[in-house]
């Protein structure tokens, strides 16, 4: 953690985005996580992505559960309302918030304990519903705040710092998200900003449940030899299926890819995702094939990363429910109260 607050003043030459904001305007409070924590890199990637997308910080709501990862919304987007809820319940709280105002951008931040153990049910069900959100799981395979117990995403055979070996099967959140109907599923690594930032941007532009499982090594409790969530292990076993470029709506595609090696996915908001194929056979529009591929590679001990699945034409929860376009939280008596005369009619029906 950093103890020295950065000065508010910044270099006049610091680049600004279309809104006139610098990257610094997207920062939050000083992180209280351990120095070198993967989660801080993810916060930095979120800041970068929002800066580059010209997002107004106050139009973002950031919600989390409990754990090291869930503390991070305090450390980015200081001008966004935050909600640090209870353990494992971020998805439901976010779902409710989203129902109240469909116009904001919803960032849900969680960890592997929060999502794969206590919150597994809520994780699965918010995917099923297609809540329009970015769900980031900062996955380190370990309980940090309670000092080093295995989490449900720890691989079988993985060694704890004290030497204990995990005997339980791991929960793969990416496969689960695919099974539950998530319409945007990706995995990345906190140490790979080049991959992570465009994935976050594409996920924000996606309408529906976008899941980002980000392997984020715990430098204090899970970064030793024998851990499968350490920096070294992930670097050695990282197998990216594609390299992606995100082009926001209103911008032209300027780079051409050789046919057969790339593909362009157009999202609902008019943005594009340009995917350079690193595995010629990998098709991110095929849910079944994605699941099979993941199982095969994981059995071979590899960590598959990249944009694993996308359905750009999906409908979100509001469309399923047929709600009005205006946010429900802006409705007044005139919109909501059926009035005295109608009550008279209703009374008559109960006589």
């Amino acid at each position: 953690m950093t103890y020295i607050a950065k000065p508010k003043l910044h270099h006049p030459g610091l680049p600004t985005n279309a809104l006139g904001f610098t990257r610094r305007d997207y920062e939050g409070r000083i992180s209280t996580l351990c120095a070198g924590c993967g989660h801080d890199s993810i916060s930095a990637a979120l800041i970068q992505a929002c800066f580059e997308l010209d997002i107004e910080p106050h139009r973002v709501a950031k919600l989390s559960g409990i754990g090291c990862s869930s503390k991070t919304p305090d450390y980015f987007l200081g001008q966004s309302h935050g909600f640090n809820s209870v353990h494992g319940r971020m998805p439901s709280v976010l779902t409710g918030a989203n129902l109240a105002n469909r116009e904001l951008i919803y960032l849900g931040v969680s960890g592997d304990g929060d999502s794969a153990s206590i919150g597994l049910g809520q994780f699965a069900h918010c995917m099923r519903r297609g809540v329009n959100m970015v769900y980031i799981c900062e996955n380190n395979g370990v309980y940090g705040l309670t000092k080093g117990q295995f989490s449900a995403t720890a691989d079988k055979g993985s060694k704890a710092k004290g030497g204990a070996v995990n005997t339980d099967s791991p929960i793969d959140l990416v496969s689960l998200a695919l099974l539950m109907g998530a319409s945007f599923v990706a995995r990345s690594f906190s140490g790979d900003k080049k991959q992570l930032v465009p994935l976050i941007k594409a996920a924000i532009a996606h309408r529906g449940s976008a899941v980002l499982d980000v392997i984020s090594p715990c430098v204090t409790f899970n970064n030793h030899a024998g851990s499968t969530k350490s920096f070294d292990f992930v670097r050695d076993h990282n197998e990216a299926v594609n390299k992606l470029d995100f082009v926001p709506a209103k911008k032209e595609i300027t780079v051409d890819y050789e046919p057969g090696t790339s593909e362009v996915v157009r999202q609902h908001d008019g943005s594009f995702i340009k995917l350079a194929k690193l595995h010629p056979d990998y098709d991110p529009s095929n849910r079944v094939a994605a699941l099979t591929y993941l199982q095969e590679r994981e059995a071979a001990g590899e960590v598959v990363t990249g944009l694993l699945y996308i359905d750009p034409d999906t409908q979100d929860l509001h469309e399923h429910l047929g709600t009005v376009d205006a946010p429900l939280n802006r409705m007044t008596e005139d919109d909501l109260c059926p009035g005295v005369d109608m009550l008279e009619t209703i009374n008559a029906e109960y006589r």
Partner: protein
Amino acid sequence: MQPISATNDFVVKFANVNGSGSASANELFARSVLRMGVPVASRNIFPSNIQGLPTWYEVRISGDGWLGRRGGVDLMVAMNPQTWDKDVAEIEKGGYLLYDSTKPIPASKFRKDLTLLPVPLTEICNRAYSDPRQRQLFKNIIYVGALAFVLDMDLSAVKWLIAEQFENKKKLIAPNLQALDFGYDYAKEHLKGVCGLKIRHADKVGDRIFIGGNDAAGLGAVYGGATVCAWYPITPSTSLAESFTKHCERLRVDPVTKKNKFAVVQAEDEIAAIGMVLGANWNGARAFTATSGPGISLMQELFGFSYYAEIPAVVFDIQRGGPSTGMPTRTQQSDLMLAAYAGHGDTKHVLLFPEDPRESFEFAATAFDLAERLQTLVLVMMDLDIGMNDWLCKPLAWNKERKYDRGKVMTADELEAGKEFGRYLDVDGDAIPYRTLPGTHPSKGVYFTRGSSHDRYARYSEDGGVYVEVMQRLLQKFETAKSLVPKPVLHKAKEPAKFGALYFGSTSAAMDEALAALESHGLHIDALRVRAFPFSEEVVEFINAHEQVFVVEQNRDAQLQKMIVNECAIDPARFISILHYDGTPVTARFIINAISERMKLGKAREAAE
């Protein structure tokens, strides 16, 4: 033994097998009596089961308008062989028994004092219908027809209702009317002059309506401006969420776009339901959930969050018999303590106690105003008796001028004008701070909501002094709540009374009758109907003004009484508990017996001294 003779004042009970289609026929009977201008109180006593288990429907016909259960049965319609012995035993001395006489029943199965009303229902059905389902369903209508004759009812009232009921399925009208006539004609031929129970036209119903509490509360949530309902199915609360949905589909669909000004989500469990409710309320939409005891147990962690982070929320608790799974289809008032203090740490919540469906409608709307004004959880404590039974009550009312109280929400203009914002800062002295909604202003009014300890500006703090300051303000806010919640209702005796009685919720109907009966026997009691927690000053003053106070409750542990003892620091010796908790709604007879025994005991003791 003289057969019972009564006009417009008796109890008919139907003993059926659930899933046999009896419910709508029994309700038809009750509504027909209402159409004749005679008040009824009907109650379903049903099993936690879909088909095959015993179910009862009790209709109290009361020309005097008493709407509680009286206790006892004057006429039993015994349609369930499984419960025959118990049902026959329950009839009052000199009562009546209507039954299916198709197969001979041994004389030992009857009581000598009863007047028998045999109708060969199966035989009539088998003769008239070939379809087994029709044979089953019309049996119910046939006994309603027979009842209409023996009770001297106005057959046109029943026929009128049938025509209304099947307005949209017109081809069902004729067969139902025919079945009704089968029963009526049979009784006319065979049961003339044998029944001393009569229903005569009266003018005692007036403009009152016949509605269930869950239905009324769901409509109240529509009127109260709720836009988000997140819920998980649980008896006996399910029909509240369904009612909200039904009324919204009629009243809240934009006529042009056909889009919904509401969102209903069936959650994966009660925890997710309350999570959604908090998220939506945090973001400025009025949101609620409906549940029962087990759901309240599950929701506690987020209840505590609502209390501490000061997020409005509305929860309807349709109480059923506990503990654990308990008696899911029976009524109780046994969640009071759980609901009042749900959550770990020092936590308290606002509770409202509606007495009937009309007040459930009113309190449903009030709950949203209170929740947003106080920025806290408000629980509407209904029960199965109110929620799932149709009650005769005054028409639902709404004031044309009524505006929603959205509480202290700081706007973008106020922020822009430089108004100081501290999420947990008490600027008005009522201990209620201002909040902002996400997305309000680009650079002002932002805050971080957390369940961990925080200071006035919502910043994380582990400082003891900072923590205590917030906790003390929350206590003070609860004091503010006392002046905002519905006041108790006083029912004064005709003569000065040493005894007082406290009661709440669905006990009201039986209590009104009991008080009148006690008064007519010279036992004078002042009564106060408690309508909310925290308890207002009037509750304390009432207790202090009486030597002894009965507390009538439908739970084992005298929960309201204990809360009063603790919250108002009153000597427990002042109270006498009257507790009814077998799962059936409390009866007037029970209250009359329990109170008069104790009062007479007191008088005897006084005389001896």
